[in-house]
C-alpha cells in the first residue's frame, strides 16, 4: 500500500497508468525448485503475471535444487506443471517468451560453493537480462533447510547488494511451530537479512477481500462510528474446507488446524477486522496496529481453555455425496492420532473498542462446503416505537470464498407487518468477475515483494505474538493430566456439537454458510 525508501523515483511515463507500486526487474531465486509449491503455485503465478503484462521486463527465475538437470529439463518440467495448474490456459507464444527467462541452478542447500556459483550466475543474468542487481529469494524448501540456505546466502554475500539494488527474502509458513521455534527462526533470518528485507508470506492476506476490509471499515462513514463494542454484538470468522489432509499428513500430523490455520491466517484476518486506523498507509504503520490486536488477545488460563477452545477430528463420512475416510484412516496418519482437524475458539480482545465482544473462530477440514467468511454481527434493537422487534441482527460480512463478496444485510419492513424479520440482502461484488480472473493472491503478493511493499506480509513481532497466544492452548492440549477432550465429527458435518455449544452458551449460533 505504500512505498518503502528503496522505491524508485517516479517514471513520468507511468503517470495515470497504474495506482499500484511498480514491480522492479529482479532475479527470483526459488529454493526448492523441484517441489510442489514451485510447480503448483509459484511458477504458474509468475506465468499468469507475465501473461497479464504485469511482470516487468528484466525478470528472471532461477530454480535452485539438489537434483541434476539442465535449464531446458527444468523448463520442460515447469511447463508441464504450469499447463496443469495455471488459472488461465498457457499460450505457446507467451510461454516461449517467458521460458527464456527461466534457469536452473543445481546445488545442495548446504554447499557453500553452490552459492558462490549462484552469485556469479546472477551477476551474469544482470548483464544479459537487465535484472539490475535485484534479488528476490523465495524459500519454498522445507523449514529444516532454512538455516542452511540463509547462512550460505550470507556467506556468498547474496544478502547484500550494491547501492540502488535490493535483496529480499520471502519465507513461507510455518514460521516456527511454537514461540520458541519462531524466535529461533527469526534469529536465524535476522542473522542474514534485516527485517526490512524479510517478507513472511500469508497467502490469505493477498486476497482482494482481505484488503477490502480496511477500505470498507475506514473509508465509509456508515461503518467507522459503529465499529466497536457499543454496536457490535460479536464477530465470526470461518475457514471451512471440504478437503481432507490429502498428501500433507507428514506436516499436518505435527501441526494440526490450530498451528496450520489459526496462528497465521485467521489471526491475520482478525487483525484487519479489529485494528485501529493506522497513522498512514505505510507497511509498518499498518503492521504496528495489527500487532497491537494480537497483543490484546485475552490469554485463557489452562482451566479456561476447555471452555473456550474446542478441538475436533473428522471421522468417516461423506462429502458431496461421496464417502470419505476418517482422518485416522488417511495415508501416513497415526491410527491413534490426537491431531485436531477442526478448531473453534471463543476469543476476546482486551481493549476499549472490543471490550466484551466475543470473536468466534472456526476452522476445519472435511466440512460440508469450502467457504471462508468474516461476519460482523451488530447488536439487535429489541424495541422500537414501543414495538418489539423479532428476528436477526444486522450483519456485515466479507466472504472470501466462494463468492468474494462484501455484504451488508439489514432489516426492512415486511409487507403487511408492522416490523419484520425478513432480511434484505444488499450485495456488493467486490471483485469484478472478469476484471482479471487469473489474478490471485499469490500473484498479488509476488508483485508486492517485487515492489518493496511489505504491507501484506507478516512482521516478526506479529508472528511471535500470535505464537504467544497459541502456545498455552497447545500446552493444555498436550498436558498429561486433564487435557481438554478431542471431539470427533463425521466428515461432511459442521464440526463437533461442542463447537455449537460454544456459541449456544452465549445465546448465539454459527452463521449458516
Amino acid at each position: 500500500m505504500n512505498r518503502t525508501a528503496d522505491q524508485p523515483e517516479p517514471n513520468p511515463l507511468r503517470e495515470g497508468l497504474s495506482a499500484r507500486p511498480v514491480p522492479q526487474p529482479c532475479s527470483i531465486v526459488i529454493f526448492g525448485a523441484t517441489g510442489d509449491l514451485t510447480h503448483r503455485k509459484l511458477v504458474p503465478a509468475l506465468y499468469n503475471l507475465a501473461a497479464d503484462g504485469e511482470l516487468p521486463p528484466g525478470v528472471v527465475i532461477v530454480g535452485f535444487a539438489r537434483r541434476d538437470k539442465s535449464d531446458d529439463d527444468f523448463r520442460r518440467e515447469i511447463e508441464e506443471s504450469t499447463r496443469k495448474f495455471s488459472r488461465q490456459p498457457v499460450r505457446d507464444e507467451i510461454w516461449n517468451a517467458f521460458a527464456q527467462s527461466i534457469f536452473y541452478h543445481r546445488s545442495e542447500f548446504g554447499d557453500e560453493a553452490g552459492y558462490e556459483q549462484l552469485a556469479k550466475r546472477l551477476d551474469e543474468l544482470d548483464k544479459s537480462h537487465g535484472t539490475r542487481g535485484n534479488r528476490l529469494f523465495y524459500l519454498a524448501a522445507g523449514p529444516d533447510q532454512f538455516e542452511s540456505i540463509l547462512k550460505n546466502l550470507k556467506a556468498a554475500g547474496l544478502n547484500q547488494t550494491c547501492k540502488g539494488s535490493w535483496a529480499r527474502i520471502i519465507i513461507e509458513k510455518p514460521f516456527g511451530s511454537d514461540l520458541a521455534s519462531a524466535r529461533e527462526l527469526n534469529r536465524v533470518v535476522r542473522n542474514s537479512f534485516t527485517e526490512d528485507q524479510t517478507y513472511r508470506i500469508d497467502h490469505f492476506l493477498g486476497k482482494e477481500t482481505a484488503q477490502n476490509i480496511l477500505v470498507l471499515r475506514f473509508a465509509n462513514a456508515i461503518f467507522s462510528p459503529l465499529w466497536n463494542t457499543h454496536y457490535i454484538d460479536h464477530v465470526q470468522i470461518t475457514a471451512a474446507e471440504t478437503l481432507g489432509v490429502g498428501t500433507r499428513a507428514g506436516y499436518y500430523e505435527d501441526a494440526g488446524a490450530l498451528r496450520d490455520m489459526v496462528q497465521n491466517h485467521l489471526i491475520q484476518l482478525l487483525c484487519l477486522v479489529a485494528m485501529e486506523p493506522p497513522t498512514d498507509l505505510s507497511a509498518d504503520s499498518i503492521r504496528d496496529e495489527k500487532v497491537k490486536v494480537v497483543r490484546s488477545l485475552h490469554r485463557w488460563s489452562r482451566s479456561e481453555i476447555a471452555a473456550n477452545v474446542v478441538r475436533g477430528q473428522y471421522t468417516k463420512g461423506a462429502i458431496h455425496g461421496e464417502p470419505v475416510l476418517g482422518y485416522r484412516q488417511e495415508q501416513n496418519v497415526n491410527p491413534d492420532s490426537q491431531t485436531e482437524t477442526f478448531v473453534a475458539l471463543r476469543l476476546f480482545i482486551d481493549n476499549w473498542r472490543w471490550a466484551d465482544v466475543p470473536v468466534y473462530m472456526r476452522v476445519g477440514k472435511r466440512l460440508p462446503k469450502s467457504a471462508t467468511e468474516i461476519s460482523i454481527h451488530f447488536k439487535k434493537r429489541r424495541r422500537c416505537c414501543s414495538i418489539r422487534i423479532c428476528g436477526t441482527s444486522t450483519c456485515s460480512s466479507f466472504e472470501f470464498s466462494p463468492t468474494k463478496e462484501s455484504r451488508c444485510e439489514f432489516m426492512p419492513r415486511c409487507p403487511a407487518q408492522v416490523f419484520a424479520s425478513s432480511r434484505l440482502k444488499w450485495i456488493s461484488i467486490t471483485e469484478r468477475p472478469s476484471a482479471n480472473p487469473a489474478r490471485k493472491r499469490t500473484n498479488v503478493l509476488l508483485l508486492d515483494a517485487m515492489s518493496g511493499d511489505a504491507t501484506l506480509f507478516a512482521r516478526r513481532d506479529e508472528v511471535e505474538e500470535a505464537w504467544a497466544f497459541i502456545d498455552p492452548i497447545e500446552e493444555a492440549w498436550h498436558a498429561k493430566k486433564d487435557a481438554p477432550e478431542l471431539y470427533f465429527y463425521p466428515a461432511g458435518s459442521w464440526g463437533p456439537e461442542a463447537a455449537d455449544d460454544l456459541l449456544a452458551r452465549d445465546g448465539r449460533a454459527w452463521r449458516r454458510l
Partner: protein
Amino acid sequence: MPAAAETYSLGAPVEIGKIEQELKKLWQEGEGAMTRASLMNLAVYSEQPGSLNNNTQLMAKITENHACRAIVIEADCRREEDRVDAWISAHCHVSSAGSKQVCSEQISFLLKGGCTTQLPSIVLSNLDSDLPLYLWWQEEFHEPMDPQLWTWVDRVIYDSHGWSDFRSQTRLLELMQKEANQRIVLCDLNWTRLDNLRFALAQFFDHPASHHRLAKISKVRIDFAPGFRSTAILFAGWLGAQLNWHIEEVKSPRELRFTGASARHIDVDLRERDGEPVHEVALTSGDVEFRVTYADCGDLLEISRAQNDEKRIPQLMPAGNNDPVGLISEELIRGGPHRVYLNALNCVRDLL
C-alpha cells in the same frame, strides 16, 4: 420477466410517462434469484439508423461487468414530426458465484424530429437517482450545446479518431466544459486505445537507472493504420507532454520535430501502414532502441529493447481489446480526471 436471460431485443414498448412504473413491474414479475444492480447511468446517443439494436447488443456485453441503468437513444433529427418511442428491457448475467442473476435495466428511446430539445428531458427524467451519469456520445458534437444536459453529465465518452474537424470539436468540448463548470470529465476512446501501448512502453523506464534514457531520446517512430493518424499524434503528444517536449517544426505530414530540454531535438516519424490503429512504436535513445509492436497473433504486444546489435529478448503482454466493448469497459473502470490525456491533447492540438 420478459428478459430473464441475456437478451438483445429492445424489450417491451412503454409509454413515456410510465417508464418507472413499468420498470417496477418488470422486476416484480421476474422469476428466480435476480438482483437489480446499478452503479451508474450509462446513456448512449447515436444518430445512426439501426443504432438502437447495435447499441443494445453492446449494452448486453458491457453490463456483464458494469452494472448500470442503460439509456440507449437513437435520434432521427431530420424527421419533421416530433415523436418519441420507448422500450424497456433487462440484461441479466449469472454472477461469479454462479447462482444469482445480476440484472441491469435498459431504457431505449427512438427520437424523431426535434432531437436537441427532446434529449435533455429524455435523459434527465430517466436517470437512476444519485448515480453518476456517463454519456457516450457516438456522433460529432454540434451546436447548440444544451447546458441543461451537460451540467448533469459526469463523464462524456467520445471517440475523436473519426472527427472530421478536430479543432471545432475541441472548441465544442471546451464550451461543454464551461457549461459544466469544468466538472465534466472528458473520456476519449481514441486515447483509451493507447492504454496498453503506453503501459508497455512505460515499463522500460521504471527503474531509476533507465531514467537517463528518457532524456536522451532522439528518435520516435510510430506506425499507424490508415484513418488513425490522430491516434498516432496523440501518442506523440503523450510523450511530449510527459517528457516536456515542445513542437518545434512540422517538416511534413509524417515528420515532426520536438524540442526537449537543452534544445535537444527529437524527430518523430509517423508511418502509415496496415495493421492495428497504432501498430508499432520505437524509441531510440543513444545506442538503445525500445520497441513495442503487435505480435503476429494480434492480441499480444511484443516489447523488447536492443543495444547495438545485441539479441532482443522479447516479452509478451496483452494488447487489450480495441473493440467498442473493450474500450468502453476500460473507460468505465476509471475514476478521476484524465489529466494526462488533456496534457497530451494540449501538446499536439495544433497538429490534429
